[in-house]
Each structure stands twice: as structure tokens, then as C-alpha cells.
């Protein structure tokens, strides 16, 4: 699983990468997830619906909300009224 962050002037940056099945990797991912949310980022997980194949996204607020098998979590700055 990859954690990506959308950044000005850079596009997406890989923050962390690892296999959630491995305890060591999972702890690293959890720490990074918490750090990003604490710094004010929102997190979305791109998903593909099994029956239709349509691509969707879900917002997650806890590491445990990330669906099993998700390949990417995208962090982006919190929305503000323009």
C-alpha cells in the first residue's frame, strides 16, 4: 500500500509504502497516517466497485477505515470555502 500526498509544485509525493500484513510496515503506515491527519490533511481511498467496475473514492478518518486490499491512500489539504 502506498500513501500519497498531493503537493503544490510537485504533484503527488510518496510518503510511505509498505505491506499492511507485516507488523513493522503496518506500524509505520499507522504512524504516517496519524501524522498526516494531525497536520490537517484529509485522506481518501480510491476504490473500484466489484460488480460494476466503477471507480469511486471513500474518505477515511482512521487507519482501520482503510478497506482491505486498498493500494493507495491519497492525502490532500483540507477543503476550504473559496
Amino acid at each position, binding site marked *: 500500500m502506498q500513501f500519497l500526498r498531493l*503537493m503544490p*509544485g510537485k*504533484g503527488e509525493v510518496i510518503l510511505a509504502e509498505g505491506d499492511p500484513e507485516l507488523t513493522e510496515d503496518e506500524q509505520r503506515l499507522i504512524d504516517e497516517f496519524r501524522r498526516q491527519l494531525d497536520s490537517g490533511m484529509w485522506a481518501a481511498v480510491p476504490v473500484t466497485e466489484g460488480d460494476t467496475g466503477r471507480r*469511486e473514492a*471513500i*474518505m477515511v478518518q482512521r487507519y482501520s477505515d482503510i478497506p482491505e486490499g486498498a493500494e493507495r491512500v491519497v492525502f490532500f*489539504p483540507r477543503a*476550504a*470555502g473559496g
Partner: protein
Amino acid sequence: MSTVLFLTMALVAFALGTYLAAESIRERWRRRPRRGGVRPQRFDPGTERRAERRARMLLRSIVNEEEWEMYRDLGFIRVHGSQNRQRGVGETYGYLIYPHKPIVAYLQGSNSLLSEYCVEFPDHDENVYGPKLPDSDDVLAKWMMIRADEERLIRGANMHLPGRQVDPQQVRRDLWRLAEWERSRGHYGHVRVVRRPGGEPAASAS
């Protein structure tokens, strides 16, 4: 004797002071802002282009194929609203997602414009490039929010009547272009791509 020495020293000090002052003035004159001149680059001008290229690749890998092609060809993405469909009432509505412009809501049957939702994703941690995400990342963030939590996005956005930031004529033209685009895909099974020089999308909101 000492008077002569003093006068010589004073003369030398005066000459040195005058020279330094003249140098300082000359340097300031050289650095003055010039009207119409080229401003010094703060960073590599290709950086933002590369960032946008990366952002487009990411967008392509996340949104549906048709939505990607829509963005590539037309410069915006149309997303169907889900709330009326979930409740089973009313006419269906949709959103047009433009990069760094408000999201425009409209009724899909009549193409009537409903409102503009002004929303941004400013990254205040970034000091070098400013707070704005690359265009395609801005579109991706809006797309993910609408797909994932439409109500939250709309609740947090500033809502305005159509025409405040996005020209309604432009939106109507875009809706017409979208209809033509969909018709061409339906009839011919492929998309006619009209590109601007430089490979940019055929058009975007003004």
C-alpha cells in the same frame, strides 16, 4: 605639520566615503525594479509543468476512463449528483468540476444552472510554490470529495448563484460541447479530439 597630516587624512577619508557611496548608489540603481523587464525566476519554470504532468497521470489512474477522457478532451469532468437519486425524488443534477474554479451544479434535464460551490484545497505548509495544487490534483481532490462525501463538500463550500466566478455562457457552451462529445462517442464509438497547441485540453472555463 600635524595640520597638513590631518588635512590629508580628512581628504583621503572624504574620497573613500564618496567612492563607497557612489558604489552603493550604482548597485541600488542596477537592482531597481524595471517596468516591463523580466522578473527573476524563483525556481525552475519547468517544475510546475512536471508537477502537472504527474498530477494528470494520477488523475487518470483514479477516475473512470470516460471521466479521464472528458477531462483530457474538454478540460472539465462532469459528475452526476447522488442525493436525489438516493432519495428517488426530483430531477437529476450534475456537477462540472473545473481546475481551480468553483464547482458548478446544474439540472441535467434542462441544463439549468443551479449554483456555484467555491472550494479550494490550500496547502499552507508549502512556501516555495504557494498553496495551490496542480490543476489536475485540484480536480482529483474535488472528484474524490464528491464521490466520497458530496454532502460534506457542499456543506463546507461557499455557495453562490451562477455567474459569480464562472461565466454562465461559458458553462452553457461547455454543456453543449459535452453533449456533442457524448453524441460523437455514442455514434462513432470514438472521440474526436481537438487539441490546443502544447497538448492542453481543447478548452477550459474562462
